């Protein structure tokens, strides 16, 4: 019996690894879930919006995000994952289900304009975090990352990596819950 013990240990380890493979150790849950969004005060970037829309204020703070659920999307023109998620963001913007706020992370404004010009602009408003300090406050460790805020400005969900339709399926009920 004791000679079979090593085999039993191996089987347990293999089961463990099989489960471990399904998970990404780099995905660390955000401690900000359930907390109010960290404070920021960032300049907006003036972009050609839809005709007739009021131009955004010159600067915005976390207080301006309250009132309705909103997706805060940290992105950059230099980021490959952002290009992956971009078509879905466009689709989401067209559906009008939720307001999208983009925070352009460590990016030159001219690059951003060229990038949005080429791929389309899904954002209601784009803020510029040139120094990356807001990203640090929000615990961003790689773009793209998307935070879901409820109407009270609390973070209810964080998506690390591209926003996928699957992730949206998980986010949508959260928004409905917070709206009611």
């Amino acid at each position: 019996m004791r000679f079979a013990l090593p085999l039993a240990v191996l089987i347990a380890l293999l089961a463990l690894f099989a489960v471990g493979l399904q998970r990404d150790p780099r995905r660390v849950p955000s401690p900000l879930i359930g907390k109010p969004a960290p404070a920021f005060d960032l300049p907006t970037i003036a972009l050609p919006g839809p005709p007739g829309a009021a131009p955004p204020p010159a600067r915005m703070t976390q207080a301006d995000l309250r009132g309705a659920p909103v997706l805060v999307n940290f992105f950059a023109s230099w980021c490959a994952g952002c290009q992956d998620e971009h078509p879905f963001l466009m689709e989401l913007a067209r559906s009008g289900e939720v307001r999208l706020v983009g925070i352009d992370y460590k990016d030159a404004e001219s690059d951003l304009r060229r990038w949005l010009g080429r791929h389309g602009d899904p954002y209601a408003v784009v803020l510029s975090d040139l120094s990356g300090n807001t990203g640090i406050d929000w615990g961003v460790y790689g773009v793209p990352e998307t935070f879901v805020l409820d109407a009270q400005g609390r973070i209810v969900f964080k998506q690390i990596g591209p926003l996928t339709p699957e992730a949206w399926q998980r986010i949508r009920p959260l928004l409905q819950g917070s709206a009611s």
Partner: protein
Amino acid sequence: MSAELGHFALILALGVALLQGCVPLIGWRRRDARLLAFGASAAHAQFLCVLVAYACLTYAFVTKDFSLAYVAENDHTRLPLFYRVTAVWGAHEGSLLLWVLILSGWTVAVSVFNRRLPLEMGALVLAVLGAISVGFYLFILLTSNPFDRLYPVPAEGHDLNPILQDPGLALHPPVLYMGYVGFSVAFAFAIAALIGGRLDGAWARWTRPWTVTAWMFLTLGITFGSWWAYKELGWGGWWFWDPVENASFMPWLAGTALIHSLAVTEKRGLLKSWTVLLAILAFSLSLLGTFLVRSGVLVSVHAFASDPTRGLFVLGLIGVVVGGALALYAWRAPRLRAEGELNLLSREGLLLFNNVFLVCAAGAVLLGTLYPLVLDALGLGKISVGPPYFDSVFVPLIVPLILLVGLAATVPWKRARLGETLRRLRMPAVAALAVGLTLPLAIQGRATLVAVAGTLLGVWAAGTAVQDLWRRVRSKADWRAGLTSVPRAAWGMNLAHIGLGVWAIGVACVTSFGAEKDVRLAPGAHAELGGYTFVFQGEREAAGPNYTAQQGSVLVEREGTAVARLYPQKRLYASQGTVITEAAIHPGPFGDLYVSLGEGYDDGSWSLRLYDKPMVRWIWLGGVLMFLGGGLAASDRRYRLARALERRSAQAAEAAAA
């Protein structure tokens, strides 16, 4: 064209390996000598195939053939030739090709050196090695083919990771793989013994030189890795308890236990099933290391591109290879019988304790490495396990182990008398106490508990080893006759134990007296550390073959006299836009001075990291001494004599049968 040739050679190697794994087994069932002998020919053919494949990939790197995806990913037109050759194993696909090349090389070595082994035994060993090769060829061909083409062909390659553009990279992976892969031979011998049912002193004698050879390369590989990380990563540390470091350290611990338990099995016919289990364990931990590195289940500084399919494949490979071996073990090991009884106060008894400590250490490292994975898999949260855990579990295990080294080398086999043993140990004990208390004071002018304890242990291990050699030499009337009478195995063992002592002294001193400081210095400003004055003299541009650098100049003075001039660099590799720091080190036998360059500021000042690293070289010197000791032990004359003897008796038996 050469890429297709290489790809084809690799497929051919897979076919040959399949035959090598099956035909000798059939021969063993049918007792057919011709089929048994096939294993050696297959091993040679397989080596030729994989050598061709490896040469083709190297050729593609040297000629910058960016039509190969792997070459485009890791080569660059401005990469110096030396690094174009070493870049072959700079990433996943090529390093696996190196792995199978080395595995095949070991197989050929077994087939050449073990011609004198009983035919059945040798054939079974080659069959097991062939079966392992099959697994790795499939892994390469199905998930990680370095010969995949890329279309459209890029005009320029993505370049080798700049951090790997260092002579240390040329040495570290191949030597480490020699060790990892070498344990496959001990594994194959263990499986052959379980299948064939023959496990005796002779089996242990055949297995020992292979195991020691693998162990010495693993030791050297880890030593190179530690040295490379120290000089290249710019943190001034020599060991980080990173998962991938642990992955190489666990097989080392198991392998160290194995070479000691093999000694017991050879000399006394004891611990048989334990030795077999260790042989399986050492190689299994090597495979586990591969899995941890390649699959990305753990976060590590060794950022190989990770891929879940690859992880799943290696997991399957472990399941088949290790699972099969352990099932065989569960079935056959109960039949292995000890040939005597074990007395705890004897060399074999103390070696058993040595094994307990080494295996516990390996288990503790395994637990710490896998713990984050366990918690995550059970959904209990994300954590990381760092040096505080490893230091606090490892130190209590290594301290008694080093004490045992001195004891076990002094105590005779079978049964020892306590009084006699204690009398012999008096000298090393006095030396350890004296040097332990004075050496830290002599080199640093102060003593700490860690420094004294570490030096004491180190001198104890080295002192008992020297005493053993001294007694052996003195046993002859003439010292020249005495020197030549000492077998290489004894020189090797004692040299390795001296290496352990040197390592312990280095570790204790560098952890105790090492100092570091982060400073921001304007040109002309200075900072003090460890009795040295570091004067920052400004910064200028420098350029290398494929990088530009900002190079700081730091003058180090001690009491007004210049000790060293250091030029730390911050290099920009334009091909990838990567910036790496290149630390400047002033090495010395009793300590290093180490400066690495941080950020530059607008006012011309720079942030610098300054380190004083007393005795840090002793850590690697210890590793090199262990390597040399292993080399001496593996080449002991009695292995060759025994082989000749066995061949003669086999010939006599054949003649009698005919």
